[in-house]
C-alpha cells in the first residue's frame, strides 16, 4: 500500500474551538494537512470541513474515526481523488504594462480559463480555478512576464456519489454497524435540538 491523496469531509456544529480539536488529531500523529477549508454546508447551521492529506488508507480510516468521535462532529467521510470533484481557486497579480504589451499573455490566460478580476494601471489580478496542476501550470506561464504575487485557496470538494448529506448517511450506515439515521432525526429541526 502506498500513500495517496485523500479528501476528508467533516460535517460539524459551528462552534469555537472545533477547528483546533480537529487539527490536533492530525498534528498529534505528525501528519501534515495539505489543505484545509471550512465553509457552510447544504444543511443550515451545519459546517463543513474539507481536509486534504497524503496518507495510507489504513491511517486515514483511523483518523476519520477519531474525528467522528468528537462530540461536535456529525459525520466524517474520506474519499480518493477519483471519487470527488474538486476545485482550488488561484489569484495571480501581474504588471498591467507587461500584459498590455504582450498579446501572447492574453491568449494564454484565455487558454487557462483565467479571467481578470481587477485591472488597474499598475497591476492586474487574474483568477482561475481548477486542479493544482492546472493552477501551477499557469504560474509557470506567467512567471516570465513578472508574476508579482500568487495565492491559492484550499480545496473544496464534492463527493460524486453523494446525494447530499442526508442520503450519504443512509448509504454509509448500510455498510457500517451504526444507528439507522438516529443522528439525522434532529437535522431539520433547528428549534428542537439542543444547541448553544
Amino acid at each position, binding site marked *: 500500500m502506498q500513500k495517496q491523496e485523500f479528501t476528508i469531509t467533516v460535517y460539524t456544529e459551528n462552534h469555537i474551538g472545533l477547528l483546533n480539536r480537529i487539527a*490536533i488529531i492530525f498534528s498529534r500523529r505528525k501528519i501534515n494537512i495539505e489543505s484545509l477549508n471550512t465553509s457552510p454546508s447544504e444543511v443550515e447551521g451545519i459546517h463543513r470541513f474539507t481536509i486534504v492529506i497524503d496518507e495510507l488508507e489504513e491511517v486515514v480510516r483511523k483518523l476519520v*474515526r477519531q474525528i467522528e468521535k468528537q462530540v461536535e462532529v456529525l459525520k466524517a467521510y474520506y474519499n480518493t481523488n477519483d471519487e470527488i470533484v474538486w476545485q482550488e481557486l488561484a489569484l495571480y497579480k501581474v504588471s498591467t504594462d507587461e500584459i498590455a504589451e504582450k498579446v501572447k499573455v492574453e491568449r494564454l490566460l484565455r487558454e487557462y480559463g483565467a479571467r481578470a478580476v481587477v485591472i488597474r494601471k499598475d497591476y492586474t489580478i487574474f483568477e482561475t480555478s481548477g486542479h493544482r496542476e492546472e493552477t501551477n501550470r499557469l504560474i509557470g506561464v506567467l512567471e516570465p512576464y513578472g508574476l508579482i504575487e500568487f495565492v491559492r485557496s484550499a480545496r473544496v470538494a464534492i463527493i460524486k456519489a453523494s446525494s447530499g448529506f442526508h442520503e450519504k448517511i443512509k448509504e454509509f450506515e448500510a455498510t457500517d454497524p451504526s444507528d439507522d439515521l438516529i443522528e439525522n432525526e434532529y437535522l431539520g429541526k433547528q428549534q428542537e435540538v439542543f*444547541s448553544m
Partner: protein
Amino acid sequence: MIMETAIDIIEKPVKATIQITGSQALLEALIAEQVDTIFGYPGGAIMPIYDALYDYHEQLKHILVRHEQGGIHAAQGFARASGKVGVVFATSGPGATNLVTGLADAQIDSTPLVCITGQVFAHLLGTDAFQETDVINITTPVTKWNYQITDACEIPEVLAKAFYIARSGRPGPVLIDITKNAQLQLFEYAGYQSCDHIRSYRPKPYIRKEFIEAAAELINAAEKPFVIFGQGVILGNAEQEFKAFLEKSGIPAAWTILGLSALPTDHPLNMGMLGMHGNYGPNVMTNECDVLIAIGMRFDDRVTGRLDKYAKQAKVVHLDIDPSEIDKNVKATVGVWGDCKETLPLLTRLIQTKVYPQWIEKFRAYQKEEEKEVISNELYPSEGQISMGEVLRVLNELTEGEAIVVSDVGQHQMVACRYAKFNQTRSNITSGGLGTMGFALPAAIGAKFGAPERTVVAVIGDGGIQMTIQELGTILQTGIDIKILILNNQFLGMVRQWQQLFHDKRYSFVDIASPDYVTVAKGYGISGDTVKERNHLKDALQKMLSHQGSYLLEVMVGKENNVFPMVPQGCSVSEIRLK
C-alpha cells in the same frame, strides 16, 4: 373576553424566571445532577463560585485539597469507586494547568469528570491578564469535551451538556471554563433541564444483529476460545451480563489491569492478568487460542506486546462502545459495536452452553509453572527481606477481598494488581493508561468519599507517595479514614528493574531517599508504623486495618526485587519471561 385576557396576562409570569447569578446557577446545576461532593481549591478567578458555595455548604460537600492535581485525582478515585461523575473546582492559570495530568489520566482511562475552572473577565481574555492561561486550548487534547462560558445565561445548558457527555457512551473528562463576569452576572434563570441528547453526538452505536450473529457463530465453532476483558465491563455496569456470558460459554477469561475486579478473583473461569507483568498462561495462550473475544478493552501496547506477533493465529471478536477502538490496534474479524451491557446478553442468547476442560487444563499447567517459578517465592519467601507479594498476600488474608485497593504506579502496582484478591467490582483503582505516579494517595481519598462504607487501602511506592504527599493535609482536615500502605524498596523500583535488565545495571537516578514517613504522618495527625521484620508484618497490617481513622504503614521490602513474569518491550506475549 377582556377580563380573560387580563387574567391571561397576569397568569403568564407564573412560570416565571428568577434572577440569580451565574455562580448560583452552576451550583443549582450540580445539585440537579445529584452531585454531593466537590474536590477543589479556591483562587481569584473562581471566587464568585466559592462565595456562592458558602450558602450551599449543606447540600454540597466541598473537599479542600492541597493541590489541584490532588483534587482531580481524588475526583477520579471518587468516580471509579462510586460510578458517579467526579466534580472538581479550580481557579484560572496555575489552578487550571495543575489539572492537566489528571485530565490526561481520566481521558485515557475513560473516567467521567466535570471540571469547573475559573477564568479572568471576558474583556481581559487574550491580554495576558493575571492568572490567565488559554485553558480551553491546553486541555483540548485531554478532554472528551470542553467549553468556555462568558455569559451566565449559558450555564444551565452547558452544565447539562457537560454531565451528559462525561457520563454517557465511553465516559471521559469534561472541562468548563467560566469567566469571572459570567460567575457574577445576574440573569433570568428558568430552571435546570438535564440533557439527554446532542444531535452531533452518538454515545452508543446502534447494535447490528448480523454482527452479533457472526460473533456467536465464531464463538460456537471455536475449540480454543479465550476471553480478554477490560474496564468497559465495569463502566457499562455489565458485570452480571459478563458473568452470565462467561458461564454459559465456559470460556476462560483474563483481564487488563483496568478490568480487574469486574470478575471475582476466585471465579473458576478467571485465568488472571494480561500484559507485560500479567500471568504466564493468559499471555502465552493469547498466541494459541483460535478465537480471541475482547470485551471492553482497547489492546494497549502493555497488553499486546509486539503487535505483529499478537494473536495472529486467532479470529478476533471485539466488543466495544467506541467505534474508533475497533481495528485501531488489532484487526477484528468481527467488530461488535455497542454497549456491552446490551451486546453481551444478545450474544449470550445465541451461544451454546459449553465447557472446555482440556483447554482450561492448559492454562492451569502454565499457572502451576508460574506458581512454582514465581508466585510461591513472591508470596511465601522463607528468608531475606519482606517481598511486596507477601504484603499483598497477608493483606488479602485480612481483608478477605472486600477492600478497595488503590495502587500508584510502578512495581508495587503490578504486584498489587497481580496478587490482590477482589470479591466485588469497582475495587481496583489505579492509573492504567497514563501511569501517573502520585495518583494513589489522592485517588484513595476520593474513593473513600465515593464508597464510605468500604475499607480503602492505598498501596504506594516510596517514589509515588512523595509526589502527592501534601494530600495528607486533606486527610487531616477531613478526618477521612484511609489506610496508606507504603511499600518502600528505597528505589524507583520499576525503572531500576529495567536498568538492571536492559541497561547493564547502570542505576541512573533511581536511588531515592525517603523522609521518616511515620513522623511526617504524625505531623498531620495520622498514626503510623514501620515494619521491617517478616514476623511483625501480619500484626502491623492488622493494626492498620483495625485502627479508627487513617493510618500509614511503611513496609520495608527487598531493595532489588523484580516483578516477574515480564514481557520485555518489543517482544511477543509468548516470549514472556519467568525470570
